[in-house]
C-alpha cells in the first residue's frame, strides 16, 4: 500500500532514468478496470458469434486481447512512462483492429487516420510526461498525485497543453474528433469495445487521473469545458443526422466523451461524480447498443435506419436489449442513465460558467434523447420493411452481451447507491479529490436537475417527432461547415505534396547538383569558419626559380585538363600535374614518395589509355551561368585549402614523433629507410589496410567490368 493505493506490481525498469514498471489499483482504476474486463469478456463472447468463422479470427482474438491488456495496463499504471507504454500499445492494437478488414482501402485509410491522430497526440503526451517528470521530480504517479500539484510549476503551461493534446486526440475531442466515426470501419465487436469502455475512454481516464495534479486552474477549466461542450453539442447534432446506425452510435460516443470532458473541467465533487457516473452509464448502454446494431446487421444485412422497421417480432431479444439500453441513453428512469443525467445537471450547476455548461448539456442530452428514440423505435417497431436477408435472431453468444449490459443499466439504476456508491466514492476520494462524492439516487428531490431533466425530455421528444424539420434546418448548416475528415485528406495530400516537392528539390537524381551542394557546403563551412576563427597565415615566397617553374607548369597542366575536349590532352595535362607533383616530392626530399607517385602516374596513364578506347569523347555542356557558379565554388574551396595549409605551416611543427622514428628506425626496427620502416613496422597497420584497399579496389573493378549486366531496380 502506498498512500492507500494498493501496489500491484513494481519493477525498476530503467532506473537510470527514474522509470519503473509499476501498477496500482484505486477507485478510478478499479472502475475502469471493471468496465474493461467486464465488457471485454462479453465482447469476446459476442465476437465468437459475430465472426467466429472468419479465417483470421485467431488474429482478431489476439489483437483484441492485446488491446484489452493494454487498456488494463493503462488504467492500472502507477508510473507515467508505464502509462505511456500502454497508451501507445492501445494505439498500435487499435490500429490493427480498425484495419482488420484490411482488403478494404477505406479500412486501411481509417486505421491510418486513427493511428496518426492518436499517435501524434501520444507523442505530445510523451513530451508532457517528460516535463511532468521534470517538474515533479519523478514519474511516479502516486507521488505526483499526492504531491503539491504542478499548477504552480513554471512548466505547467507546456505540460497542460501537451497532456491535453494527448487526451483530446485519444478521446476524440473537437477538433480531433473526426477519426472516431471513421474507426467504425472495424468489425462491430471492436467498435463496441473501443467506443464504450476502452480506447476513447483512455483520454478521459487520463484527464480524471491527472485532475489533482493539473486541474483546478482557469486554463484547465476553460479548455476542457469548451472542448467538451463543443464536442458534445456538435456530435449530438451529427448523431441525429446519421442514417447508418453504427455511425449514429459513433457520434453519440463523441457526445458522451464531450460531456465527460466538460464535467472534468469542474473542480467540485458533483461535477466529478457526474463524470465518473456518466462514464459507467455510457459504457454500459453504448457497448450494448453497438452489439445490438451488430446483431441487426447480422440478422438483416443492413444497418441503414431507413431500411429497417418492425424487427421486434423477428428479433425480440435484440429489440428488448435495444429498448432497455436506449432508455438508459435517453436518461429515463429507472435506468442508471437517469441518475447520470441528473448528476450531469447537478454537476454542471457547480461549475464556473454554469449557464453555458448547462445549456450545452441540455442541448446534447435532448438530442441524445431523440437519437435514442430513433435507435429504439424505428428498427424494431412499426411496419416491417423488407431487408436484404429475412430477419432472424442472432445466436446466443451475440445476445448475451447486449442483454446483460442493458439489464445491468437497469439493475445499477435501481440499486445505484448500494452497487456503485462506494466505487464511485472511492474513485473520487482516492483519485480526484479528497472531497466526498455525491450520492447516487434515483430520486434526489425536486430540484434544479429534475426540472432540467423534464425540459430535456420535452425538447428531446419534440426533436424526435420533428426530426424531418430538424433535418431540413440543420443539414444546410452541416453541409456548409468544413469537414475535418475531408480536411484530413487534404492535409495528407498537402503533406505528401510537400514531401514530394522537397524530394524533387533535394533528391533530383542529378549528380552535379549533389556535388555542387557538397562543395558549396564545404566552401561555406570552411569559409565561414575562417571568418569566425581567423587563423594565422604566414605567406613567405621562396626564391628558388626551379620551384617556381615547377609550380608553374604543374598549375598549367591542370589548366589544360580543365576544359579540353581532347581526352589525350586531358590525360597529358594530368600527367604533367603528376610529374610536377613528383618533382616537388623530389624537391622535398621524398624519394620513396616521388617514385611511388611516378609509378602510379604511369600506371594511371596506362589504365586510362586502355579505358579511353572504351569511352566516348569529351564535351562541355555547361551553360555560362553554371560555369560561373561552379567556378566560384571551386575557387572558394581551393582558397580555403590554401589558407588552411598556410596557417598550419605558420607555427613550427612538433617533431617529437618524427624524432622518435629517426632515432629508433635502425636501433629498434633494423632499417635505414625511415619511410619504409614507418610503413612496414611503426605504422604497419596503416599499410595493412592500404594493401587491402588496393586489392579490394581491383576486386570491385573486376566485378564491375566482368559481371554480366542484369536489368532490375
Amino acid at each position, binding site marked *: 500500500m502506498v498512500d492507500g493505493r494498493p501496489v500491484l506490481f513494481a519493477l525498476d525498469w530503467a532506473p537510470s532514468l527514474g522509470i519503473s514498471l509499476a501498477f496500482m489499483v484505486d477507485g478510478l482504476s478499479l472502475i475502469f478496470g471493471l468496465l474493461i474486463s467486464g465488457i471485454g469478456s462479453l465482447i469476446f463472447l459476442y465476437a465468437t458469434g459475430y465472426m467466429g468463422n472468419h479465417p483470421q479470427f485467431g488474429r482478431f482474438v489476439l489483437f483484441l486481447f492485446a488491446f484489452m491488456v493494454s487498456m488494463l495496463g493503462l488504467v492500472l499504471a502507477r508510473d507515467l512512462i508505464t502509462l505511456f507504454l500502454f497508451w501507445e500499445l492501445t494505439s498500435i492494437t487499435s490500429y490493427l483492429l480498425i484495419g482488420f478488414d484490411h482488403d478494404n482501402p477505406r479500412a486501411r485509410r481509417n486505421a491510418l487516420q486513427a493511428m496518426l491522430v492518436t499517435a501524434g497526440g501520444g507523442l505530445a503526451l510523451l513530451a508532457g510526461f517528460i516535463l511532468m517528470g521534470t517538474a515533479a521530480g519523478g514519474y511516479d504517479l502516486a507521488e505526483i498525485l499526492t504531491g503539491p500539484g504542478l499548477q504552480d510549476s513554471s512548466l505547467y503551461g507546456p505540460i497542460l497543453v501537451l497532456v491535453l493534446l494527448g487526451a483530446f486526440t485519444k478521446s476524440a475531442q473537437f477538433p480531433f474528433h473526426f477519426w472516431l466515426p471513421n474507426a467504425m470501419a472495424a468489425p462491430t465487436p471492436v467498435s463496441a469495445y473501443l467506443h464504450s469502455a476502452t480506447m476513447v475512454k483512455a483520454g478521459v481516464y487520463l484527464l480524471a487521473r491527472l485532475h489533482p495534479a493539473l486541474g483546478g486552474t482557469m486554463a484547465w477549466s476553460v479548455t476542457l469545458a469548451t472542448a467538451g461542450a463543443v464536442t458534445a453539442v456538435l456530435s449530438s447534432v451529427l448523431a441525429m443526422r446519421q442514417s447508418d446506425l453504427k455511425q449514429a452510435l459513433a457520434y453519440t460516443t463523441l457526445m458522451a466523451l464531450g460531456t465527460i470532458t466538460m464535467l472534468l473541467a469542474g473542480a467540485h465533487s458533483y461535477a466529478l461524480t457526474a463524470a465518473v457516473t456518466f462514464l459507467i452509464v455510457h459504457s454500459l448502454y453504448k457497448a450494448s447498443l453497438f452489439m445490438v446494431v451488430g446483431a441487426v446487421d447480422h440478422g438483416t444485412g443492413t444497418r441503414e435506419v431507413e431500411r429497417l422497421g418492425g424487427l421486434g417480432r423477428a428479433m425480440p431479444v435484440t429489440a428488448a436489449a435495444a429498448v432497455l439500453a436506449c432508455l438508459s441513453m435517453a436518461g429515463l428512469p429507472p435506468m442508471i442513465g437517469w441518475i447520470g443525467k441528473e448528476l450531469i445537471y447537478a454537476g454542471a450547476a457547480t461549475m464556473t460558467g454554469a449557464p453555458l455548461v448547462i445549456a450545452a448539456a441540455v442541448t446534447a442530452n435532448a438530442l441524445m434523447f431523440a437519437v435514442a428514440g430513433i435507435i429504439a423505435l424505428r428498427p424494431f417497431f412499426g411496419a416491417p420493411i423488407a431487408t436484404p436477408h429475412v430477419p432472424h435472431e442472432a445466436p446466443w453468444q451475440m445476445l448475451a452481451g447486449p442483454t446483460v449490459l442493458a439489464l445491468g443499466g437497469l439493475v445499477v439504476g435501481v440499486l445505484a447507491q448500494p452497487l456503485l456508491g462506494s466505487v464511485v466514492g472511492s474513485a473520487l476520494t482516492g483519485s480526484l479529490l479528497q472531497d466526498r462524492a455525491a450520492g447516487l439516487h434515483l430520486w434526489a428531490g425536486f430540484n434544479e436537475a429534475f426540472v432540467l431533466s423534464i425540459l430535456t425530455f420535452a425538447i428531446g421528444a419534440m426533436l424526435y417527432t420533428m426530426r424531418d424539420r430538424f433535418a431540413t434546418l440543420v443539414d444546410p448548416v452541416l453541409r456548409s461547415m468544413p469537414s475535418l475528415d475531408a480536411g484530413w485528406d487534404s492535409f495528407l495530400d498537402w503533406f505528401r505534396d510537400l514531401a514530394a516537392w522537397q524530394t524533387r528539390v533535394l533528391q533530383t537524381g542529378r549528380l552535379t547538383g549533389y556535388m555542387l551542394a557538397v562543395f558549396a557546403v564545404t566552401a561555406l563551412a570552411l569559409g565561414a569558419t575562417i571568418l569566425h576563427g581567423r587563423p594565422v597565415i604566414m605567406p613567405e615566397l621562396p626564391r628558388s626559380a626551379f620551384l617556381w617553374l615547377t609550380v608553374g607548369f604543374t598549375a598549367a597542366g591542370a589548366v589544360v585538363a580543365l576544359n579540353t575536349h581532347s581526352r589525350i590532352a586531358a590525360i597529358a595535362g594530368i600527367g604533367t600535374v603528376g610529374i610536377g607533383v613528383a618533382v616537388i616530392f623530389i624537391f622535398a626530399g621524398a624519394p620513396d614518395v616521388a617514385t611511388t607517385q611516378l*609509378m602510379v602516374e604511369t600506371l594511371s596513364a596506362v589504365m586510362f589509355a586502355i579505358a579511353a578506347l572504351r569511352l566516348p569523347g569529351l564535351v562541355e555542356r555547361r551553360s555560362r551561368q553554371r560555369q560561373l557558379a561552379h567556378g566560384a565554388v571551386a575557387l572558394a574551396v581551393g582558397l580555403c585549402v590554401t589558407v588552411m595549409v598556410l596557417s598550419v605551416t605558420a607555427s613550427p611543427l612538433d617533431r617529437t614523433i618524427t624524432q622518435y622514428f629517426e632515432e629508433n628506425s635502425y636501433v629498434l626496427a633494423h632499417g*635505414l629507410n625511415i619511410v*619504409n620502416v614507418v610503413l612496414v*613496422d611503426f605504422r604497419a597497420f596503416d599499410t595493412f589496410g592500404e594493401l587491402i584497399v*588496393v*586489392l579490394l579496389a581491383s576486386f570491385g573493378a*573486376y566485378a564491375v567490368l566482368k559481371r554480366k549486366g542484369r536489368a532490375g531496380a
Partner: protein
Amino acid sequence: MNSLILSVGARFLTALFLLFSLFVLLRGHNSPGGGFIGGLIGAAGFVLYSFAAGVEAARQALRVDPRAIGVWGMAIAVLSGLASALASLDPFTGLWLILADLALSTVLVFDIGVYLAVFGAILTLVFALEETL
C-alpha cells in the same frame, strides 16, 4: 599489339621488370623501395607483356589468377601480423632473425605480402580493363 620490336623487347623486359621489382622489394628497408614500389614495377612488367602478347598469354605466363596472387599477398600480410603471437608480442611486432649480415624478419614477410597484393591488384585491374570490350 603487333610489333616485332615490342614483342622481342617485352620478352626480356618483363623478366627485367620482375627482377628489378624483387630487388626494389628486398632492399626497401634500407633504401627507397619496398613492397609497394616493387609490386608496381613487377606488375608493370606483366602489363607490358600483355601489351605485346595479349592478355591471354600474359595470364598464362602468370599461371595463377592475379586476384588469387593478391589474396595470397593479403594472407601473407595477415600471417606476418599474427606471427608475433608466437612470441607473445603485440600484433604486427617484427620478429627478427639476424644472421651476420643477413636479416630475416616478419617485417620483410609483411612487405612481401604488400608486394604480392599490389602486384595482383594491378594485374587484376589491367587485365580486366583489357578484356572489356
